[in-house]
């Protein structure tokens, strides 16, 4: 935490630590994380998912929006269409693959945006306290008082239905959570001896907050970020399911489920695969988050 990048002695000692097995925060984290097979599995799955999303246009066997197989409407999975065909004749596997880009991007960008704003507000509120802190925390309380999806619906009602607006809407309710988390940590960290030492050698407030307090909050932010991804993906899909987000023919998973509702009796497989896609994606992020928390939380070592 206190090591300065670029300092030769630190670089050398880090290399030596890796060779001789001395414990650094990173090696300690990796040692604990590696011991959790479930979390390692989740990490592998997330990595695979990201690869699939990046290369989806080349992997997808058919065009997700403009290929229509009129001879096979509503047919269940087969060799030609692994996940079956939807009521309009589109290949469900291709749509799921292309949809992974939308869901992962929506989840990532909404949490990143909310996390960035929330972390900044939390750092400032915790470091400066006073009236600024009270205002930020009061607004956070109010935002907390709105159930997330209600808040998102309000934003979509104002901005209109589209995927970009959904990302904005979902990010709004990540803000108070990050602000509270980071504020609490900042309050604790700023009274630590090392911060006092940095201040006594004349470092500016900016340097203290960005170089010395922020790194101390990173592990909680990473854990929370990962956990939040799952929730945000579900909320974004819920909004699309309600017709407020991605519009047809966009292959967003929630929107696909909404389209599948009409033909549930004849073609349940049309709803099954998007459901499973959302479930496994969110499950992987939640399990990864649990694993990160267990590996980063010093309390866990006692047990």
């Amino acid at each position, binding site marked *: 935490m206190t090591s300065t990048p670029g300092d030769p002695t630190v670089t050398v000692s880090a290399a030596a630590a890796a060779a001789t097995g001395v414990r650094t925060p990173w090696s300690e984290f990796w040692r604990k994380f590696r011991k959790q097979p479930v979390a390692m599995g989740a990490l592998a799955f997330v990595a695979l998912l990201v690869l699939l999303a990046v290369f989806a246009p080349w992997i997808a066997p058919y065009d997700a929006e403009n290929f229509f197989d009129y001879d096979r409407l509503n047919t269940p999975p087969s060799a030609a269409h692994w996940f079956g065909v939807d009521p309009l004749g589109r290949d469900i596997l291709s749509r799921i693959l292309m949809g992974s880009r939308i869901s992962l991007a929506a989840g990532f960008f909404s949490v990143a945006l909310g996390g960035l704003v929330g972390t900044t507000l939390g750092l400032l509120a915790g470091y400066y306290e006073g009236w600024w802190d009270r205002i930020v925390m*009061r*607004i956070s*309380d*109010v935002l907390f*008082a*709105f*159930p*997330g*999806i*209600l808040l998102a*619906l*309000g934003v*979509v*009602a*104002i*901005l*209109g239905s589209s995927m970009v607006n959904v990302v904005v809407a979902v990010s709004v309710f990540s803000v108070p959570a990050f602000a509270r988390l980071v504020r609490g940590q900042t309050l604790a960290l700023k009274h630590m001896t090392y911060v006092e030492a940095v201040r006594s050698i004349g470092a500016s407030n900016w340097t203290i907050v960005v170089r010395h307090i922020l790194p101390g909050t990173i592990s909680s932010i990473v854990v929370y970020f990962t956990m939040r991804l*799952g929730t945000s993906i*579900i909320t974004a*899909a*819920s909004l699309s*399911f*309600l*017709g*407020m987000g991605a519009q047809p023919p966009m292959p967003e998973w*929630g929107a696909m*489920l909404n389209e*599948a*509702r009409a033909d*549930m*009796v004849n073609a*349940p497989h049309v*709803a099954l695969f*998007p*459901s499973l896609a*959302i*479930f496994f994606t*969110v*499950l992987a992020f*939640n*399990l990864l988050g*649990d694993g990160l928390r267990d590996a980063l939380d010093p309390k866990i070592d006692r047990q």
Partner: protein
Amino acid sequence: MFNYFIKRVLGLTPTLLIVAVLVFLFVHMLPGDPAVLAAGQDADQATIALVRQDLGLDKPLPEQFVGFFSNMVTGDFGNSLRTRRPVSTEISERFFATFTLTLASMGWAVFFGMSIGVVSAVFRNRWPDRAGMTLAVSGISFPSFALGMLLMQVFSVKLGWLPTVGADTWKHYILPSLTLGAAVAAVMARFTRASLVEVIQEDFVRTARAKGLQERVVILHHALRNALIPVVTMMGLQFGFLLGGSIVVESVFNWPGLGRLLIDSVNSRDYPVIQALVLLFSLEFILINLAVDLVYGLINPTIRYK
């Protein structure tokens, strides 16, 4: 206790005021002129001017807010743009359906969630724990709309045991409340387990065991009581989640409640109804948080109401 209660209620006032201001400003943040929205797309200039005057939209903003606020206090939110009926009527007709659905979901979520949590904590790191926690993390990860569609497909369409949509008999409540409560039950299970695992390691639990109490009494009377404090907080927060979740679940099961009313209102830009609903949902959530704070005292007498 009474002083504490009064202080807490007074403390809510600024929060409620901010919510009321936001809800009021909501109309003015909507794209387009609210008077045009209210009059309809093809109304002429004279009609729009008349509607503007009728709704008080031609007055200065602070004056509008005072009008809005005094109407709000008396429960008058104007008329729905879609049905032309009073917003209060629209809401009161549907309130009960959502209220009972939420209560039913909370009821079984607390029961199953806490049971799974207690069993997991008692059998920590053994198979009942692993099974319970796998179920819990799946419950958090399964989106409610997908779960609702799945349950409906299996129990209503394939097996024919339960009705699909509507809210007429108690049988109609089973699937929607299961769907809505699943994620809450999962969160409750995880929280109960985490809290109980910590408490079981405390000295007073060892003392209780040492004086020869049955394990059942030690867990349920001594440990669980102390483990409940964070769980009750979580329960309060989860009520907010249920309110939000009901929006999605009501859409899946075509439930005649407030959630579906909100969706219909957002789709048709029926802003008086949206305003009233957002205010109502926020008020409910704030009151629940207050109730949670008061319940603390009943569970944990060491909290002093200063």
